[in-house]
């Protein structure tokens, strides 16, 4: 898009090269000096994995030990979505069909793939408890399914009201927050899962996060997409 000069003037490039070379060299020196034996927090994580409610160390860190990071990270996602929506032409996340006349092959493929992807998403969510996986992976697959459907002209936004869309986007964050606050009300600290309920609560949160992440990814895609009207215009009116 756009007729922007691909490169900067030679002088700028030389200067940039010199600077970057300097940064690179000094950076290399720094990373090479990283001690090889520093154990980091791995032992500590191991020691506490048992009480975390999950068996996967990474998931334990993400959802329990550093669950606060994740909470904020979801906030970033929601925030980015709101930001993108605020920049989109319609600002609602609704869209005209991106492909006005859906390709029949693509359409058929999508019809086949979408349920599979939803299934995979469910698996990833469940697997996250003990192996690599979790809400983000699951949500991504869910989102991809949504994008595929959108591209093949299936989904029309009318299937969701504006409120429903907003709800889908924010539900993960809201549930996460509600859980956190509930824990506080129950006498614990923020995100302090009671040991017996930890697994259940995390699964609930992860589930809703998956929904939200999926909805967010779809919304990000759709909101950034140009309306079909404009696509037609830009392609030179050939169609």
């Amino acid at each position, binding site marked *: 898009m756009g007729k922007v000069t691909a490169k900067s003037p030679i002088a700028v490039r030389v200067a940039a090269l010199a600077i970057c070379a300097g940064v690179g060299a000094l950076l290399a020196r720094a990373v090479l000096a990283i001690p090889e034996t*520093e154990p980091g927090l791995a032992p500590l994580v191991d020691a506490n994995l048992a009480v975390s409610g999950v068996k996967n160390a990474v998931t334990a860190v993400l959802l329990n030990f*550093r669950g606060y990071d994740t909470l*904020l990270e979801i906030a970033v996602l929601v*925030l980015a979505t*709101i*930001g993108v929506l605020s920049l989109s032409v319609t600002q609602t996340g609704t869209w005209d069909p991106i492909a006005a006349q859906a390709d029949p092959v693509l359409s058929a493929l999508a019809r086949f793939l979408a349920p599979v992807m939803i299934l995979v998403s469910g698996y990833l969510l469940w697997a996250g408890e003990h192996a690599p996986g979790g809400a983000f992976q699951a949500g991504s697959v869910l989102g991809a399914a949504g994008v595929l459907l959108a591209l093949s002209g299936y989904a029309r936004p009318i299937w969701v009201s504006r409120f429903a869309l907003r709800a889908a986007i924010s539900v993960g964050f809201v549930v996460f927050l509600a859980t956190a606050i509930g824990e506080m009300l129950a006498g614990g600290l923020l995100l302090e*899962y009671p040991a017996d309920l930890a697994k259940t609560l995390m699964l609930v949160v992860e589930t809703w996060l998956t929904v939200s992440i999926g909805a967010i990814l779809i919304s990000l895609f759709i909101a950034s997409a140009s309306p079909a009207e404009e696509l037609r215009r830009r392609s030179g009116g050939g169609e």
Partner: protein
Amino acid sequence: MAEWIARQLPALVVLVPFTAAPLAYLLGTGFGRQIALISALLSQPLAILLAVTVVREGELRYEVGGWGGPLGIDLVVDGFTAVMVLVTTVVGLFVTVYALGYFGNRERYRFFWPLWLFLWGSLHALFLSGDIFNLYVCLELVSMSAVALVGLTLRREALVAAMRYMLAAILGSLFYLLGVALIYGAFGSVDMQTLREVVRSDTTGQAALALMTVGLVLKTALFPLHFWLPPAHSNAPSPVSAVLSALVVKGSFYILVRLWVDVAEPMAFPGVSTVLGVLGSTAIIWGSIQAFRQQRLKMLVAYSTVAQIGYLFLLFPLVTGGGQAAADAWMGGIFHAVSHALAKSAMFLAAGTVLARFGHDRIDGLGGLSRRAPVTAMAFGLAGVTMMGLPPSGGFVAKWQMIRASIESGEWWWAAVVVTGGLLAAAYVFRVVGPFFGREVDDLDDADLNAGPSPWTMESAALVLAIGALVLGIVGQPLLDLIMVSAPALVAGVTP
């Protein structure tokens, strides 16, 4: 109940805006306004309570998830934190009140409320965080919500400015994140409390510190990396401009201070403080000159921020020596952040009123403003007093302490910079304020945008903030005391 609040206080401070934000989004325009106001009002007692608690009990530590560092993440509140939360909350309240009038019920700006609440919450999260990786997430939250707010009007200039800001912010975050990675590599922890004990002069660690510094300097828009600030701050909607200049740049500055003066102080290496001081001084001079040159009011105020940020960085050379000078510099620097926050937000809000009412903010078209909009003119003028650092404003107390520190440390030239900066500030402030008293210019015609006088809430929000900045110079001692509560070892040596 009271006991519960006392126990959960740090978390509540963060959670209130963060809960309000998705609700404001979810429930739409009409409710967004009310939710924001409720959140703003709820935050006031919490912030005050936080400050009071810190004064009474010293540093507060809240172990999120019950794990405690270094495994979990701690929310930590010392005097510095409490002060920053307090100023954020106060400025936040008045910006919210102002925005109620400024945006009205217009559907176009419905995203303002959730974005603003997210920004507010992330600022609180940032100030409270006791974990350097968590700070990265907070920084990103702050940046992204700020950028989104800048572009809110969808005006061409605003979008371009937002893009500049976005790129600079992401780059800064990446530098910071790389530094965090190296810190973890070197010392095996990202928890501040732990790091404080284990950091030492170390090749990787010091490189990490350098990288984080660059990232944060970029985000704070210290000269010569201020390229993104003036367009972003001047083209944003005025309430947003106020928040950006008053609070957002202070966020990254806060982390910088945390690192150099507190957490990473044992591995601080020589030279950097001087570099930061020199850049700060240059920022003061250069920003003021540029501010003086501007033709648009909001551009002038934005460049004034570039200049005022420079003062913050004088903190670094002045604290390095420790002792009483460090304590004074510490108080001065942070107090400056506070008073600048109040005054600068007042200035932007006043500028916004002008813009909303007269449809332009050309400085040469503002003659006779004191007759047409006396409250706004007064707000701008009083805020200018803090910019100049004249008593009885908070800016004066800050400069007093900085001058004190520079004489104490024997580095008198910083004092010269402080005084010169004040005079240059006077030059640009009076370039605007002078004509307020002059003859009216025909341009001052309310016919333009919003015909009719501005809602009194807008005018008085700016005035209250300006008066706040002004009286801070007389009643500011409790704040100075608060700043010194559980202050880092380097600066806690002696307290007057």
